[in-house]
């Protein structure tokens, strides 16, 4: 029954699912063309997982922010600052747990300030977080005196970045845990539904009893916390806190979210899509490196991917 098939194809939401199709195509393409370069080896694949973990984790939280029709450009800087506050706390001899606490608190606090300025003072989040991006990066630079702060705590290094369990990098576990929690929150919890409603039509959400200001505070604190976690993972992986961590990550994160099918216009979001989007960008970067392209070329490709993602992710035109 070709007409039935035709209908199914018509009904299939291409925009929402394009990332999965693209991902499979990219994988197949590189598996064939980069076979001799070892693209499909376990080492290389795990390497991709390691390299994309931080973007994925921040992407999960960013999905909520974008779904609520806001944006957070400060994540990269927050990652750096949290890495530094964590490292400094350990350097001061306060131990790993205190350091984790301080690192997370750093991120959550900045998220709180972002949320406060957006909801209470009513400054658009683009401006608030753009300014915050600079303030926080500057703060990270200043606190670290521009030099790396070494981390020597072995437990920390194991759990936050460098460890392997059963041959699988711990970073992959972090990614999976955060993605699963994020997915359930967005799809199945009250908070998730209210976040989507806030982004879909804020007035109607308020009229239905959603405390949209509180939702926005929460999503900004979410990106703050996840950016902090990402920063701590950078620190564990490189065994030091550096103010340069996460430079430019905000764009990769937003690209992953949009590529994944979350709408920049708010009201639509998918955590699984974001993670796939992030891994796909990571895979392409990896392939470019294997092919011997350098950073400048990677940047160009990534920029083009963002444009493609937004072009495909544009609001569906009405029939």
């Amino acid at each position, binding site marked *: 029954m070709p007409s039935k098939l035709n209908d199914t194809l018509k009904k299939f939401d291409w925009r929402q699912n394009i990332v999965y199709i693209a991902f499979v195509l990219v994988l197949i393409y590189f598996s064939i063309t980069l076979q001799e370069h070892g693209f499909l080896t376990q080492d290389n694949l795990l390497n991709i997982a390691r390299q994309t973990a931080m973007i994925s984790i921040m992407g999960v939280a960013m999905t909520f922010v974008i779904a609520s029709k806001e944006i957070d450009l400060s994540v990269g800087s927050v990652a750096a600052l949290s890495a530094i506050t964590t490292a400094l706390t350990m350097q001061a001899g306060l131990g790993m747990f205190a350091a984790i606490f301080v690192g997370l608190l750093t991120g959550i606090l900045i998220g709180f300030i972002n949320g406060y300025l957006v909801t209470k003072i009513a400054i658009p989040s683009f401006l608030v977080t753009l300014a915050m991006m600079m303030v926080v990066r500057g703060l990270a630079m200043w606190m670290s005196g521009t030099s790396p702060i070494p981390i020597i705590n072995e437990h920390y290094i194991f759990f936050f970045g460098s460890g392997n369990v059963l041959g699988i990098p711990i970073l992959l576990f972090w990614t999976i845990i955060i993605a699963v929690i994020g997915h359930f929150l967005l799809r199945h919890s*009250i908070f998730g539904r209210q976040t989507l*409603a806030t982004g*879909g039509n804020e007035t109607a959400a308020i*009229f239905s*009893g959603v405390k949209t200001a509180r939702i926005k505070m929460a999503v900004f604190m979410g990106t703050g916390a996840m950016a902090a976690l990402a920063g701590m993972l950078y620190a564990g992986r490189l065994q030091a806190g550096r103010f340069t961590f996460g430079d430019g990550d905000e764009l990769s994160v937003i690209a992953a979210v949009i590529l994944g099918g979350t709408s920049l216009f708010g009201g639509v979001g998918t955590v699984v899509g974001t993670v796939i989007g992030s891994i796909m960008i990571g895979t392409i970067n990896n392939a470019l490196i294997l092919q011997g392209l350098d950073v400048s070329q990677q940047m160009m490709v990534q920029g083009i991917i963002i444009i493609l993602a937004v072009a495909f992710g544009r609001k569906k035109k009405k029939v």
Partner: protein
Amino acid sequence: MAETILKMSNIEKSFNSINVLNQVDFEVKKGEVHALMGGNGAGKSTLMKILTGIYQLDEGTIEIDGKEHIFKNTADAEDAGISMIFQEFSLIPKFSVAKNIYLNREPRNKFGFIDDKKMVKDSEAIIKELELKIPPKEIVENVSVGYWQMTEIAKALSKGTKILIMDEPTSTLTKTETEILFRIIKKLKSSGITIIYISHRMDEIFQICDRITVLRNGKNVVTKNSADMTMEEVINSILGGSMRSSFEWVERKASDDRTPLLEVEKLKSGIRVKDVSFTLFEGEILGMAGLMGSGRSETVRTIFGIDPLENGKILVRGEHVKIHSPDKAIKLGLGLVPEDRRSQGLVLGHSVKENMILPSLKKVSKKNLIQNKIANEKVERLIAKLKIKTDDIYKEASLLSGGNQQKIVLAKWLLNDTDILILDEPTSGVDIGAKTDIIEIIREIADLGKAVLVISSEMTELLAMSDRVLVMKDGVVTSSLERKHIESEEDVERAIQIE
């Protein structure tokens, strides 16, 4: 007999293989006012969107003045002299009236700049032709909403429209404004403009329309001169025999102990609500009558925590409460069906289900996780109860017909099992059969001991359900009439107009 100006034949249209228009023929004569009628989801708006190039037909032909046209987009239709006045206004509120009328077609001077003077002068001429008093330089925002529609009409005229489509134009108008609109329609008609008029209000149709076409479930039912049809016949063709429309008022058994659920004392908010006091009892349906701008919507907005309360107090179940947000109001057992379903009532991009459960997420969750089984069951039940026409519970709200969207907004609060239900024009855009159903449902709710406060500018409907009617004027409650002492609509009309 006048010649045919528009002929749509064998129109077919499906969305996702679900048929919406089936072999529809529609013929309109030059200079007539032609009513297009039918129940919610019958396909009226879809047919008109095809005529204006918003949707493309799957099959069929469109002829204008005997010449076949294919409309690929709205510009094509406009070139052929067709304009539509949408229910959702397409004016830019921050622009002046004149600027809106000539939007994108601004007259230019010899340097290629916009010729403001000419624009204002031309607008003035059109407005004068319509015998209206709208200052062309005024910013649209500052003009009363009732005049927005007139501005839209002026805009259509400035384009040299031959066929003007109005989709439920009176649903936001007061009686006086409706009269002005009708006067304009007659004027347009006499100057040879053809009008296609969509409305669910029977009396209007017989007042101004020459012929009537009725659609039911995407098919033609009848086209006749309105003089040759009775109101019963029209209602029958719309509903398909199952004649279920009675706006008869039946006295409800008033309970003896009158427990006040909601008490409002000396409410003041903004410029529209000056001094409002009333009591709403358990099991009571309290109607609110008044002109547009009399402060009814603003009063309920204040009670619901949207507009700030500047003075006075609100008691719920005898207790003094401070309501700063709708969230607080809902916690106290209030629910509001707001004035504007599209901007305030619905997340248009979300599904029927998601919209319906939004105020009740806690009620359909366990440990903060939404239980789809419970939610779906409740949603399905309300879809059946309100006869909402949708493919399934996952259909995007924006794709439902206007009347069915309105029913979702009502369903939100029925699902929430709200104690004090406030309804601001709850049946706007709803067809005549569904109106009867909704009135019945509202009575059912009141019979359960809940209280209902309802604003409606349709007097027949208001009188069909209210136990008592409050009359508001200029932000003040001027009188409270027991329904059983009201003999006719004129009684209330008089109370509304009283100086």
